[in-house]
């Protein structure tokens, strides 16, 4: 395992800038998740580190060594793709052993056997080592694909949405598994996804990408509670943060320059109107099972918060709404008063 550093890395494809002056350091043993929509530059970042793309400018360092112009094979990385690519005619055991059999590695059979068996145990597929790869469920195949990356101990694991092809249920289990495995191995891991739950639950640090730029990086708690902009704030949270124009609700005085107020569930007190005064009306309560969303109409605007399972509120109720220490943004969407977290 090793530290990986991108310094001032840029990459263009024709007229499109895929990555703009990216500075990113992934510490030894760290799990970093890059979060962003399609086209934000997540996959390109992985490919630049793997050497599958060559940077136009800047430097890529792995374990202290400048690999900016090194061929992929000369970089000590492994890549897990979105679609598991197993050898269908081989058994699980043979699939796992394959990356170790390259003549360049010169591992003896006993060493290979030991590594395959311990990796299989790690990804919990050791009971199916003799099965053909095609005779596995989707989740098992993806575990083998991840296992095949893990048998090697490279400087860094690069993972490109490895869970997105799985059923929702399996995905939830695999999130926990992957985090456990990474911690057990002390692995350095860079993972890209558009799924905020994956980012929140697995990452030591989350990097938020927008149009090829890394606009904020920090722990999940920092990104959630101290976003640098409305864009970042809107990336995390279910339901999404309410971005409300100043003046919509009584705010008790805000700093100059405040244009938009960002209010999540914890930034709002919503109570049944007691004395005739009301700020809004409960539109409906959306029962999603584990999370219930309270939809409130305030004039023409609408806000959505998480409501407790036993909320006393019902559709049609008139409510008072007060801010509790919300996030404030200027007209450009930058956060105000966002000092040290």
């Amino acid at each position: 395992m090793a530290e990986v550093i991108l310094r001032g890395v840029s990459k263009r494809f024709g007229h499109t800038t895929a990555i703009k002056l990216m500075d990113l350091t992934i510490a030894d043993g760290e799990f970093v998740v890059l979060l962003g929509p399609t086209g934000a530059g997540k996959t390109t970042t992985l490919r630049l580190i793997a050497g599958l793309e060559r940077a136009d400018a800047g430097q890529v360092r792995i374990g202290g060594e400048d690999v900016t112009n090194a061929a992929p094979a000369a970089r000590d990385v492994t890549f897990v793709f979105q679609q598991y690519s197993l050898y269908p005619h081989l058994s699980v055991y043979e699939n796992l052993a394959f990356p170790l059999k390259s003549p360049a590695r010169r591992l003896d059979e006993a060493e290979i056997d030991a590594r395959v068996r311990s990796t299989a145990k790690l990804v919990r597929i050791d009971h199916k080592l003799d099965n053909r790869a095609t005779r596995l469920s989707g989740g098992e195949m993806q575990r083998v694909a991840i296992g095949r990356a893990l048998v090697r101990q490279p400087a860094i694991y690069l993972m490109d949405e490895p869970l997105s092809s799985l059923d929702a249920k399996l995905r939830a289990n695999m999130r926990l598994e992957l985090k456990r495995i990474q911690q057990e191995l002390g692995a350095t891991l860079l993972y890209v996804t558009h799924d905020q739950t994956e980012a929140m639950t697995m990452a030591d640090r989350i990097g938020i990408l927008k149009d090829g730029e890394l606009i904020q990086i920090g722990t999940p708690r920092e990104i959630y509670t101290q976003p640098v902009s409305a864009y970042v704030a809107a990336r995390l949270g279910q339901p999404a943060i309410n971005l409300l124009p100043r003046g919509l609700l009584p705010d008790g005085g805000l700093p100059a320059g405040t244009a938009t107020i960002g209010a999540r569930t914890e930034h709002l007190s919503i109570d049944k109107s007691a004395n005739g005064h009301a700020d809004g009306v409960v539109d409906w309560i959306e029962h999603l099972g584990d999370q219930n969303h309270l939809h409130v109409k305030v004039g023409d605007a609408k806000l959505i918060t998480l409501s407790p399972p036993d909320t006393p509120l019902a559709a049609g109720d008139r409510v008072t709404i007060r801010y509790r220490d919300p996030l404030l943004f200027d007209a450009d969407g930058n956060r105000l008063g966002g000092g040290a977290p």
Partner: protein
Amino acid sequence: MAEIRVENLRKEFSGFTAVQNSLFTVQDGDFFVMLGPSGCGKTTTLRMIAGLELPTSGRILLDGEDVTMKRARERDIAFVFQLFALYPHMNVRQNIGFPLLAQGVARSEIRARVEETARLLRIDHLLDRSVSGLAGGDRQRVALGRAIVRRPKCFLMDEPLGTLDSEFRDLMVHELRELHNSIGATTVYVTHDQLEAMSMADKIAVMNHGIIEQFGTPREIYDRPRTMYVADFMGSPPMNFLSFNAGLAAGDDAIEIRGAKIAVPQVRESIAPAELALGVRPEHIRLDDGAALRGEIVGAEYLGTTQIVSVATPEGLLKARIPAEQHVTAGAMVGLTFSCRHLSVFDKASGRAIETALYGEHRHG
């Protein structure tokens, strides 16, 4: 508009039974979701309704008419496989109008219906644009438009949002439901995502190995699961199960776990001593130092507004959803209290929910 009735539907593929004795009715105008993991038979059922597979036995009735042996194109149904399948060389207007052109509808009528459809989907400003330059969400709206423009009796959709970014998916879930509210066509929708099902469905069927485990409204399915399988499939994290051994008598309103008395909805049947499981949802657990039932905190997952705390007990690992600002320490012993009126009790051997006031009050109400 149509009612879809499925009677004792069964499908076998060379020795493997994909769907067994499926029996349900989708009412006219309902948004019906078939929910389950891959391989549970949901897509096979959908394909039989569409006429793309013939059942081994059983009947399918569309508005009372037996269509079991009819070809797909003789059924007045629109199938949306993957919303992204568009004709790249045609513009938005031509893509949406294509099914009508193929049916030989008059040009003026096509023009009117395409424009009406585009307005409904809020893409009327894009009608003369090429589809190749469109953003993902707009492409998806065009594909939907092509299904809607025919005004079929019903829509069948097979994981249409599966390949989308999660942010887009949330948006499209709401748009699909709004669209359904405005056109009201019977819709059968297949997914493995319980949150999609909860957000959109009027009725859900939860499937497992070709069998419908439970059919009901989203709230019935989530709040009053009939089996441990359903309880486990719904929710993220799913329902927790605490194992205990006991017999129960009708009228009991508490159970005992390790000497701690836990109030449950009143039991409505008697159960000989057996291995049982108390079912409790993560959001119905509170950490309470005064509680008799205790466990050790083994981890916490931060989710922003809430956090999921894992608590180890001798009866099993519990996951509780509590506010993120509540401070917890790994290794600490905590007391646990449960919201009584939401608890279920299951017979572990069969997985069946034991009759209690939780189920009864709604059955008679």
